[in-house]
């Protein structure tokens, strides 16, 4: 195993990674920007290095500074966490060429899956069902129109380099599509430096279901079941649970095996997430693959008992996968709430400020509560970064009990100083549609929590 590892990230995820490193006896080197200097979460590392000013472009995204820190501290491995440079193939290449192990998939896999149009074709080629759509990148609005005529309206234009809903536009008819094409390609060009678009049949309502996968450097791969992430506002997840109420055991086994085989075929090394869309008809379509650890990974950890960060580190150190598919057992139910410093009353605007108090009672309800946070009050939420301040994960034998546990915990939570998403979570947790398990990505709109999801 590695002697020393650099965590090229900040806050909650950095602390999460450090926890597993400590249990495996790996020294950790944390990094921080000037805006994070003096933060209490830096105590989670054996040592920490300042890498630049608050603006992420000059610190957490500054490849040169991170590589320099890793070399100077003689790190043998680098964990990118999620966000920032976690899915940057160039950075992965640069880490590896220094002989530093990249805790993530190969640059080739990152690049392949980062090109959403190419990823679609790759997955179709290995036998996964993809949403009906264009073949490869559309060269013009006319080609988009031809493709749309073939598959039928409404269609969704997506950026090939995309993510986070940027460069995404709905076309309900030919006229709207023509306008949408220009807008989306401009937005994609400015957001990703790549105007390439592809097109898919727009499926709504739908459920966002994702499979956790794990592969090693030798071509072995397994799946760790699914998570349901349909509770979203503006394509961003709010509540995640596992297992999904829309996936039965037989489907999980069949689809999981198919996905694991596809991943093994790619010789995929590390953890990854296969995102699927479930249509009202029950059909499941491949959407894209995320080549990193996910924010919501704890719900999978809760029902499988597997530490995903530990698996990442073992695979990155060249160890073959010790787990076989039959070793993976799914027990009980888990649900996660992302607590952001955001104002639900103001359309979820980020609300940085000083947290005077933060506590989540872990002894309510029938189940078990895990709180992943980097915050120890008093704590100043810097304005530069993601507004996530904590994740609360409740698990229990049944879904009912897990939801109750989470609701009771959040109801008893005390966060003083900044508005948070907790009130929104409580509305979701009390909503009958959510409680019934029969819900889709329209839930937040239906509850009336947000202005209409951008289309």
């Amino acid at each position: 195993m590695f002697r020393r590892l650099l965590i090229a990230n900040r806050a909650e995820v950095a602390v999460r990674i450090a926890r597993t490193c400590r249990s495996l006896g790996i020294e950790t080197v944390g990094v921080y920007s000037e805006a994070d200097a003096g933060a209490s979460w830096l105590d989670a590392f054996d040592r920490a290095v300042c890498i630049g000013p608050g603006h992420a472009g000059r610190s957490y995204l500054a490849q040169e500074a991170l590589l320099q820190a890793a070399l100077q501290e003689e790190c043998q491995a680098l964990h990118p966490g999620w966000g920032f440079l976690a899915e940057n193939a160039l950075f992965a290449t640069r880490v590896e060429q220094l002989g530093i192990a990249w805790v993530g998939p190969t640059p080739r896999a990152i690049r392949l899956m980062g090109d959403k149009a190419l990823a679609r074709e790759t997955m179709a080629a290995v036998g996964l069902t993809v949403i009906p759509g264009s073949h490869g990148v559309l060269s013009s609005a006319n080609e988009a129109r031809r493709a749309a005529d073939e598959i039928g309206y409404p269609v969704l234009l997506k950026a090939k380099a995309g993510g986070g809903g940027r460069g995404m536009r709905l076309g309900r008819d030919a006229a709207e599509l023509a306008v949408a094409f220009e807008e989306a390609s401009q937005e994609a060009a400015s957001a990703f430096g790549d105007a390439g678009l592809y097109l898919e049949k727009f499926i709504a309502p739908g459920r966002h279901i994702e499979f956790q996968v794990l592969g090693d450097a030798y071509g072995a791969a397994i799946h760790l079941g699914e998570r349901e992430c349909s509770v979203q506002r503006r394509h961003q997840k709010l509540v995640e649970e596992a297992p999904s109420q829309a996936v039965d055991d037989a489907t999980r086994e069949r689809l999981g095996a198919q996905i694991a085989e596809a991943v093994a075929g790619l010789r995929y090394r590390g953890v990854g997430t296969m995102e699927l869309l479930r249509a009202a008809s029950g059909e499941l379509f491949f959407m894209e693959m995320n080549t990193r650890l996910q924010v919501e990974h704890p719900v999978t950890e809760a029902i499988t008992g597997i530490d995903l960060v530990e698996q990442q580190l073992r695979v990155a150190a060249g160890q073959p996968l010790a787990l076989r598919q039959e070793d993976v057992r799914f027990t009980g139910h888990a649900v996660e709430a992302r607590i952001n410093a955001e104002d639900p009353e103001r359309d979820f605007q980020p609300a940085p400020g000083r947290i005077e108090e933060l506590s989540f009672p872990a002894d309510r309800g029938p189940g078990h509560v895990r709180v992943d946070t980097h915050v120890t009050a008093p704590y100043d939420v810097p304005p530069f970064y993601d507004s996530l301040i904590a994740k609360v994960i409740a698990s229990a034998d049944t879904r009912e009990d897990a939801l109750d546990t989470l609701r009771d915990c959040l109801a008893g939570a005390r966060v003083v100083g900044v508005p948070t998403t907790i009130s929104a979570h409580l509305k979701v947790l009390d909503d009958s549609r959510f409680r019934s398990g029969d819900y889709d990505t329209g839930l937040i709109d239906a509850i009336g929590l947000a202005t209409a999801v951008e289309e």
Partner: protein
Amino acid sequence: MARIALHPLGSQLATEQAQTNRDAVEPLERRLAERRAAVRSGWGEKYVERVHRKGKLTSNERIERIVDPGTETLAVGTLVNDEKTFGPENRTSPGAGVITVFGVVHGRWTMIIANDNTVASGSWWPRTPEKIQRAQEMALRLRLPVIYLVDSSGLFLPEQAHTFPGRTGAGAIFTMNSRLSAAGVPQIAGVFGDCIAGGGYMPIISDVVYMTEQAYMVIAGAALIKGGKSQQVTSLDIGGPDVHVHLSSCADHRVPDDETCVARLRDEVASLPSSAVGYYRRGAEPAPPRFASSDIAGIFPLDHRHLYDMRQVVARLVDDSLFREVLPHVGREMLCGVARVSGLWIGLIANNPELIDHPEHAGEKRPGGILYREGIAKISQFARTCGDDGIPLVWLQDISGFDIGAEAEKQGLLGYGSSLIYTNSTTSVPTLTVLLRKASGAGYYAMAGMPYEPVIQLATPITRLAVMEGRTLAIGAYRTRLDDSFNIVADSEEERERIERGMKAVEDQITADMDPHCAARQMDVDEVVTLGELRRWLCAFGEMAYQSIGYRTIRNPRIWSLHDLLLLADEPH
């Protein structure tokens, strides 16, 4: 541990300037596309139909079927003889009547040499033998299997005096056949039709010879056999597969038709050792540049005297736009370093045309794009290091020439330049030379120009290849009529005008000769390619250079002598 870390290079171009630059190159690229299309169509549709009527495929159709589906071939010598005419009837010979392309067959790069059966039944014109020999030489240097698609009625006789007797006459093709064979380079031949005299010899030295039912190979055709006419003897009777496959053993297999023949040739290649490219990538995967190679045309200013940043060109040629510059602080007029193309290590040596600090006179600048002492020493040492380590070299020329004047002579640039020439003449690594723009005088020589035997030399539509620029030559020719600042000294207005006209005529003529099409026509460059196509060529060159094992040094990067150079230069990382 010694390790070569590559660093990001390049940035987005200023949109407006790039568009202006692209617009200026566009007509030159259009002209190239037109000439290529003209060569491709041979003698025209009538001759294509004639081939099809015989139940045969055209040479281009054979090539399309022999390479792996979805792969593109890279042609060399496309413009040889372009727009020239021969013989009493002023015949053209598109592509000199032979198609020579690099093509991928079952994942292996091969050299395919095909007589063009839509141009005078594949006859050999002046320069046809040279073009074939050049292709054979490339294959020999890179140890690429050679596939001959033979369909040739022999020399175009009205021009035989130019193709028969000399050092590069048709017979030298067979010398190359023999050398390839002696070096263990596989040669595979398919004979599809007429194969008379020289055409008959071409396939015989190949390891395997296939003949279709329409093929014959003869030292002399039936027309020259005494009494042949009355006995109605045909060439097929005396040299067809009945004779050569079953009686003479001059060929190995007979196949019914073109399609089958092509399929069998593919099978032969499949049975050869596969490419070592994957092995030499050492775990790296090919990655496109982060800046599109189609943007290179946006870098070069319309006026060849204006400056630009060569690093922007390199950034658009190499994988991930990652580059490790070697010795960046000395001889800044030159840019050299290592990078990957198609996941494979190459060394790059390029001119830096920007103004650079004068090394001896603090505060002064001097123009780049010229060979000064430090730059020559730098690239000589870098080229030797690549030679030691087996790193294929790519030269990107935009060179105005050597530094001149008293100081340069005193410094002994003749000597430093000769050292570079010695290095280039004796290196064992495969070399690709690209005449990006200016390729002038001794600079063209010193930077591995054609006389120094690069495996391939490419020009672009903006290449200017000559001993010197036309303006400079005009100054040289009229020096007695010019003052110290090269202004005309004349007694009368009339005389001044006469001198001006004379200088202009010299300049125009030189400028016309600098045309890359002219160089390509007479085989001074192997191919004219667009700036956007360069990346493909570099990748292919890398893959070809690493395809075959055992014939050249390829040191693993752990023990590169490049590490020693970097350590001594105090640049270990």
